[in-house]
């Protein structure tokens, strides 16, 4: 179903889309995962314009999801917008890097009604702000959270759990190593 022709006579293929994006938005080298899936990186300043262009010009009207990947070793967040064309049955994943030191990006809430939910979640889980997005400061899944955003790579889930939930009064531990050492084989140096 990929490589289809849409109304207007324009052939929609990953190659054509990539050439258009590099000419207009300085896109980087594409990662052609499959015939119907391509990842492309664009500068952050061009991201919203590129998404709008894909939506309005090429018919990528479905925002499948919008999330981020924490590239902590490069001090970057990689914003990841997955766009789908129903006519061509192609997914184009647009990616844009922003600095972890200043995690602010342009909002796309005006393009899709569901986009503001993704941005609200990204604000809570990664600490990425989207100025102008409605309700972006409201809690998404967490309430009363005062740690660093939990989906960041430097948030240590185990350390947080041990700090927050253990030890708890009245809670007995049944660690098998302790039982072996203290009850079953006290004479053996385990």
């Amino acid at each position, binding site marked *: 179903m990929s490589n289809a022709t849409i109304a207007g006579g324009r052939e929609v293929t990953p190659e054509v889309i990539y050439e258009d994006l590099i000419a207009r938005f300085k896109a980087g080298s594409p990662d052609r*995962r499959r015939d119907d*899936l391509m990842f492309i990186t664009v500068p952050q300043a061009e991201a919203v314009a590129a998404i709008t262009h894909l939506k309005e010009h090429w018919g990528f009207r479905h925002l499948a*999801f919008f999330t981020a990947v924490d590239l902590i070793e490069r001090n970057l967040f990689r914003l990841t917008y*997955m766009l789908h064309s129903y006519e061509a049955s192609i997914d184009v*994943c647009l990616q844009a890097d922003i600095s972890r030191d200043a995690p602010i990006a342009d909002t796309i809430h005006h393009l*899709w*009604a*569901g986009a503001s939910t993704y941005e609200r979640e990204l604000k809570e889980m990664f600490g990425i702000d989207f100025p102008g997005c409605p309700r972006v400061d409201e809690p998404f*899944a967490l*309430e009363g959270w005062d740690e660093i955003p939990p989906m960041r790579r430097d948030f240590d889930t185990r350390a947080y759990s041990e700090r927050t939930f253990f030890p708890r009064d009245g809670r007995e531990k049944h660690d098998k190593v302790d039982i072996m050492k203290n009850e079953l084989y006290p004479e053996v140096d385990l």
Partner: protein
Amino acid sequence: MITNPPHGGLLRTRPTDGKAPLRVFDEDRSLFPEHRDGRPDIDLSSGKFLKVWQGPQHPGITGNMSLELTVSGDEVVECKTHVGYLHRGFEKLMERRLYIQNFPLVCRICVPEPDFNEYLYAACVEDLAGIEVPERANWLRLLTLEMARLTSFLMWIGGQAGSLGLGTIGQWTVTHRDYMLDLFEELSGGRIYHMYIIPGGVRDGLPEGWTDHLADVLARVEKLLGEIDLVMLHNAVMKARLKGLGYIDPAMVDHYGITGPNARASGIERDIRKDQPYLGYDQLDFEVVTATEGDAYARLEVRLAEMYQSIDLIRQIVRKIPAQGPIHTKLPNVLQWRVPAGQTWHRAECTRGEYGYMLVSDGTDKPRRVYVKGPSYTHAMAVMEDLAVNTNVADIAGLMVSLHTYPPEVER
């Protein structure tokens, strides 16, 4: 008429063709709040409004989710969805576990349909690792996915009936869902979480005599659907309450990202099983089910038709499963397995619509990032919040269930 206010949502007006009963008090709006920037201007201290919380527990949905409703009289003027009651941080947990250790985890993201999580996660891992899955294993995967759809629909239709006071149907369907779970138990050892699909294939073939049990259960479910059709879809109360409720205009579908039966009931002929066939769907004979009315009753009709369709597809699949052949590709030592660096995305059509996984590998023994996209992310949040406005508070439960939402896939 559709307008697009600054907040990004849609303001809807009811169709005026007389087909759908008006649930909005159109005659005199003087007692209701004015709208500013697309949202009602609510002063709770005025005493005109009341906050009502529906949930977090409700039998019509699987999981916990609250609707924070502001009502004026018995009409909802604002709705906010709250999730997080089940939040376990699945995506975060997966980043700290070996690839194989995530299989007992992913299935728990969606209790009624765990198999889609297993399949999509496996498909992503196999894609990055370059693993070919044997044909017989693909058919067995397809069988479990379609069985999961039917099982999940059985649970849903009982919830939809119960949310409008027809609790008996819930008892029938939960019983028949249990018959389906018996089959899963016989096949995989697990009733709810199966962990049947693993990277490279599936864990085992069909047990001896299993297809006979399957044929018996499918016949029972098919008979039940006929009774549900009579009792529920030809019920005057059901029609009065569901027709016109939660109207989704076709123009809303792309704007909100609505998928699955919620879109197909508004006349949008899209189904990933047809449009981007995976496993063996391109070798099966079926048509995409649609309706045009776009209300809760149309969604009920579409889902009931898709249940019949699932029964038919399962029968087709069983006939096509090769009797012999490998069911698993040999993997490297899974405790030291390093999946090549890269990123990929796979989607499938679950009962609620588009379910997808994005997997990012950095070449180590654990995923760098796993993103889970469930259809409820859109349906339970943006769509529910906007459809609830101007709805009678007594219909909110029916509306919520008619969107078929599973909150854990919102929180992940």
